[in-house]
């Protein structure tokens, strides 16, 4: 009995160490379950956020990792907030409140698809359009989804909007102007928009089959595939009608993003067009 007790502790320690090594080697790359990981970009920034210095042209020529990572981050933007209530319904329904609740469901659905989610606002804040775009532009391999509730349209329908064609604005250094950051991503945004809109049309009868174009301010300064999802509408008499739409909208966005993932090859070098 004394003999067994002597060799037991080293054996237990050895087994623990071995288990830790196995666990470490099999750890999933998708760390979406931890809140800290959700807020931090998985890869280097793809765009220069406002206020940050831009890199010199010479620095872009330095060889970078040739790995071409795929889409793994979704920047989710519940529109409006703070004093900006957005669309207001007769029953005291405010767009800014509802999109925040929709965002929570969309986030859960996206995380179940393995995406990291960065939200532009958590509570009743109202970041500027540029601040929201900067959150997306600071990610590599991200898409941007802004959520809205309309005050028009057939209640119970949902529409996806992508930016109109923008004149490309890249200069000799490969940088594109902030004001036209969406320009190189318009065709990708359209692909993503069509994926999501197709799923929304299946779920919500009366919704258009394809994404529509509009000059949405929030999309213009976003350097990533970007869509605006607008639900109709704040004019419903009973708020529960909107609440019932949330799971369907969340599922369509998450499945649309997952279907879009293989088609989005993130440029390996900064300054490269998608």
């Amino acid at each position, binding site marked *: 009995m004394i003999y067994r007790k002597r060799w037991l502790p080293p054996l237990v320690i050895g087994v623990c160490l071995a288990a830790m090594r196995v666990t470490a080697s099999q750890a999933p790359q998708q760390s979406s379950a931890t809140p800290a990981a959700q807020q931090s970009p998985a890869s280097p920034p793809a765009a*220069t*956020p406002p206020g940050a210095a831009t890199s010199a042209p010479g620095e872009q020529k330095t060889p970078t990792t040739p790995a071409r990572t795929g889409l793994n981050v979704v920047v989710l933007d519940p529109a409006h907030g703070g004093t900006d209530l957005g669309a*207001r319904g007769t029953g005291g329904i405010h767009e800014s409140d509802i999109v925040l609740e929709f965002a929570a469901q969309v986030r859960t659905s996206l995380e179940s698809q393995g995406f990291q989610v960065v939200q532009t606002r958590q509570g009743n804040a109202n970041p500027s359009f540029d601040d929201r775009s900067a959150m997306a532009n600071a990610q590599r391999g991200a898409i941007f989804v802004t959520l809205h509730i309309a005050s028009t349209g057939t209640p119970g329908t949902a529409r996806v909007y992508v930016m109109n064609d923008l004149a490309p604005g890249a200069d000799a250094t490969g940088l594109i102007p902030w004001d036209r*950051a969406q320009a190189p991503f318009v065709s990708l945004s359209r692909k993503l928009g069509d994926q999501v809109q197709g799923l929304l049309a299946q779920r919500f009868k009366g919704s258009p089959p394809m994404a*529509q174009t*509009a000059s949405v301010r929030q999309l*213009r300064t976003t350097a990533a595939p970007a869509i605006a999802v607008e639900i109709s509408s704040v004019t419903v008499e009973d708020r529960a009608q909107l609440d019932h739409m949330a799971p369907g909208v969340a599922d369509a966005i998450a499945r649309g993003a997952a279907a879009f993932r293989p088609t989005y090859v993130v440029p390996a070098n900064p300054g490269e067009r998608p």
Partner: protein
Amino acid sequence: MMLPRWRRWFVAALFLAVVIAAIYLPILRRNIKQAAKLQQRSEEQARRELTQPTVINPGDPKVKAKLFWASGADDGTVSAVIVELPLASDPVLRSKQVLNTLLAGPVDIELRTLPPDAALLAFYLLPDGTAIADFSEALGTSIPSGIESEQMAVDSISKTLEANVPQIRRLKILIHGQEVETLAGHLDLSQAFVVNANAPIGPRAATSEAPASAGAAAQQLTPAATAVKLAASPDKPAAKP
């Protein structure tokens, strides 16, 4: 029992005062009402003068103008309605005429795309074909908030101008003389909208003198000027895809 003399005079004076008041008060009341009505009328007159529709010259030839209002299909689209109007040949006057008719709204008010209390305050056309339409604040404050409704409003304005004023290449929308970021929180008004990219650029100067700020705003709209401005501006960083 006889009242003293001074009391009789006092009572008589009081009686007289009551009689005068009974006659005067209704007159005073009527005068106040009339003054209020006059003031209201002058305010309305001032508003009308400010937003006075362009005078239609009966000598102008009647043409079939295409005005774009909501299609009614509830799909966010606008469709053309043919309206016979005497339109001036001058592009600025013509633009004011069609926009004022557009603001007046269709017969079916459900098909409105612009708020009924919105007004066109000014309209300019620059030699490079950039039109500047200055609307009252009601355009932004009274329109139903949302991407669909705001896009329909801009579509109805730009398509109406495209169909009736071939000289216009681009359209810049101002609200009460100011450049604004969005119409009602969604649609981007900081950029100009392409109306007709193939419109001929003529040497024609603007009929109405464009204000310096409007001219400056329009100057910033050309892609080259924007690129230079942004490249030189340290507070507008560049983005890399």
